[in-house]
């Protein structure tokens, strides 16, 4: 049975179903439903909710809960996610699982409160300091807000790394029928909990840290992280493709823009235009191989984003000069629609 839910609420319920035991947040539009919903639900369930004094404090509370092997998450929107970058870098350095949701709004600076996709670079290229990568999931529906929130905790623990759900104000605020599947709570097997801090009874004391001052220790740590990131790239790429086999033009879009692109492609097909869609679901790891395989001579690519052109750089790297790659975008809270995309397609 489906329930009519707002994206931000579905995100909460997915996390709760996954056994998220602690939520730490701070108010910012357009994600305010998340801390508000969690403040009631987590307390009702006997779990931890804190409205932190800042996004900095919230991400560091997540770090503290994660150190104990407890499933924890935080959420925010673009300006607040900037403040969390310090903590994200430490989570990666300390190899701690965590789930962070970014319900993106327009930027830069304080920007506005409309849905936008301006944080692609920040999420996928590393907004914090140091050589690290973060798994980034981009939901395009309320159902996926629920599903990805649920799945993110398992992914984070599997690789001991933070996972970001890169959503936006449109998906966060819209309402759709959502299937709340009765998931079992996943738990880490005992042998995968050999790093947690819970007191050194019957074992040697442990340290969770990112400072590595011994000669060569930090370089080795970075190489070890690289091996982990390579495993993630090999195993965790997710991508949706729609009618790309015979397509003359392939639209590439993520998140809410992919919903628009799929609609445009349907309209275009009804007018006899052979349009396909590639939708990266994981923005990192990026579906480079899938795009490269689709980059056949004679085809054209059109990348659509609610920004001034960010993911288009990764598409160009994947296409590697085999096909022309064009871009259409609207920054600062502007929304693309069928008409704009069809007009751009006609110009190609």
């Amino acid at each position, binding site marked *: 049975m489906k329930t009519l839910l707002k994206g931000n609420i579905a995100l909460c319920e997915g996390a709760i179903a996954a056994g998220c035991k602690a939520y730490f947040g701070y108010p910012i539009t357009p994600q305010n439903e998340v801390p508000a919903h969690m403040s009631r639900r987590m307390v009702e369930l006997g779990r931890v909710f804190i409205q932190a004094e800042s996004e900095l*404090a919230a991400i560091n509370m997540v770090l503290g809960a994660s150190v104990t092997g407890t499933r924890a998450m935080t959420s925010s929107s673009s300006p607040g996610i900037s403040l969390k970058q310090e903590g994200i870098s430490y989570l990666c350095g300390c190899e701690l699982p965590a789930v962070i949701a970014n319900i993106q709004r327009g930027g830069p600076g304080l920007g506005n409160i409309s849905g936008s996709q301006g944080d692609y670079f920040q999420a996928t290229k590393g907004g914090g300091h140091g050589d690290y990568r973060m798994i980034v999931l981009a939901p395009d529906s309320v159902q996926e807000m629920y599903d990805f929130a649920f799945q993110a905790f398992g992914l984070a623990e599997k690789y001991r790394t933070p996972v970001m759900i890169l959503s936006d104000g449109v998906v966060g605020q819209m309402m759709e029928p959502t299937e709340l599947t009765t998931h079992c709570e996943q738990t880490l097997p005992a042998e995968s909990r050999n790093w947690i801090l819970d007191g050194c*009874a019957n074992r040697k004391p442990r340290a969770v840290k990112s400072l590595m001052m011994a000669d060569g220790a930090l370089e080795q740590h970075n190489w070890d992280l690289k091996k982990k990131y390579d495993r993630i790239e090999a195993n965790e790429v997710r991508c949706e493709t729609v009618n790309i086999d015979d397509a003359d033009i392939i639209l590439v879009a993520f998140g809410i823009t992919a919903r628009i692109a799929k609609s445009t492609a349907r309209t275009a097909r009804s007018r006899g235009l052979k349009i396909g869609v590639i939708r990266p679901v994981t923005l990192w790891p990026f579906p480079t191989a899938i795009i490269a395989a689709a980059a056949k001579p004679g085809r054209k690519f059109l990348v659509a984003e609610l920004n001034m052109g960010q993911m288009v750089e990764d598409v160009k790297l994947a296409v590697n000069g085999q096909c022309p790659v064009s871009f259409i975008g609207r920054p600062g809270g502007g929304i693309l629609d069928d008409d704009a995309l069809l007009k751009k397609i006609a110009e190609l």
Partner: protein
Amino acid sequence: MKKIFSRPESLTPAPHLYCAGCGHGIIHRLVAESIDELGVREKTIAVAPVGCAVFAYDYFNFDVTEAPHGRPPAVATGIKRVLPDRIVFTYQGDGDIAAIGTAETIHAANRGENITVIFVNNANYGMTGGQMAPTTLIGQKTATTPFGRDAKRDGYPLHLCELLATLKGVAYLERVTVYNPKHIFNAKRAIKKAFQNQIDGKGFSLVEVISQCPVDWGMTPLDSVAWVKDVFIKEFPLGVFKDI
């Protein structure tokens, strides 16, 4: 044969890398003795700061994590809220707790988090080479106050215990020092009390330890002890600021 003195079980045998005459070694020992005596070593999780005590995980023989600069009270909050029966403490310097981490400190205190905070005040940033701290005295020369701290340019020494004493969430605040054996015994009593408070569920307890930093002060260890006694604790009076 009766054993009358040994290294606390809560300290590892690792040699300290602290400078000669530094107070950290003494304070580490007082923390370790307190945890041993309270029988909570196997339940303890410490949060190390950024600063001289960042290597705390090498010296303490219990679980330790490290927080970004200034964030130990937020990290400790996360740990304590999900594991309320563990003993969670932060060990922080003046820059960590009263400059970059002021917000985290005040709000953990104001929430009445049931944690223990050991705050080592040595009036400068020791690890980075002796720059001005929020607790640097007026006129004190540091790497970034070469002409002495000037209130007009640099503001005034920040008195954290006095500031936190106004907050309802705080259970216990005391300022102590470790420049002589009498004061070391008194500091031990305060530190142990701050841990006992956590065991008893009393809430946020903080002990500020006025400590000597001879190398960054450009003094001999003996001169640094005299400066603590004659100058430093005149600006930062010792005593209990809150005890409920």
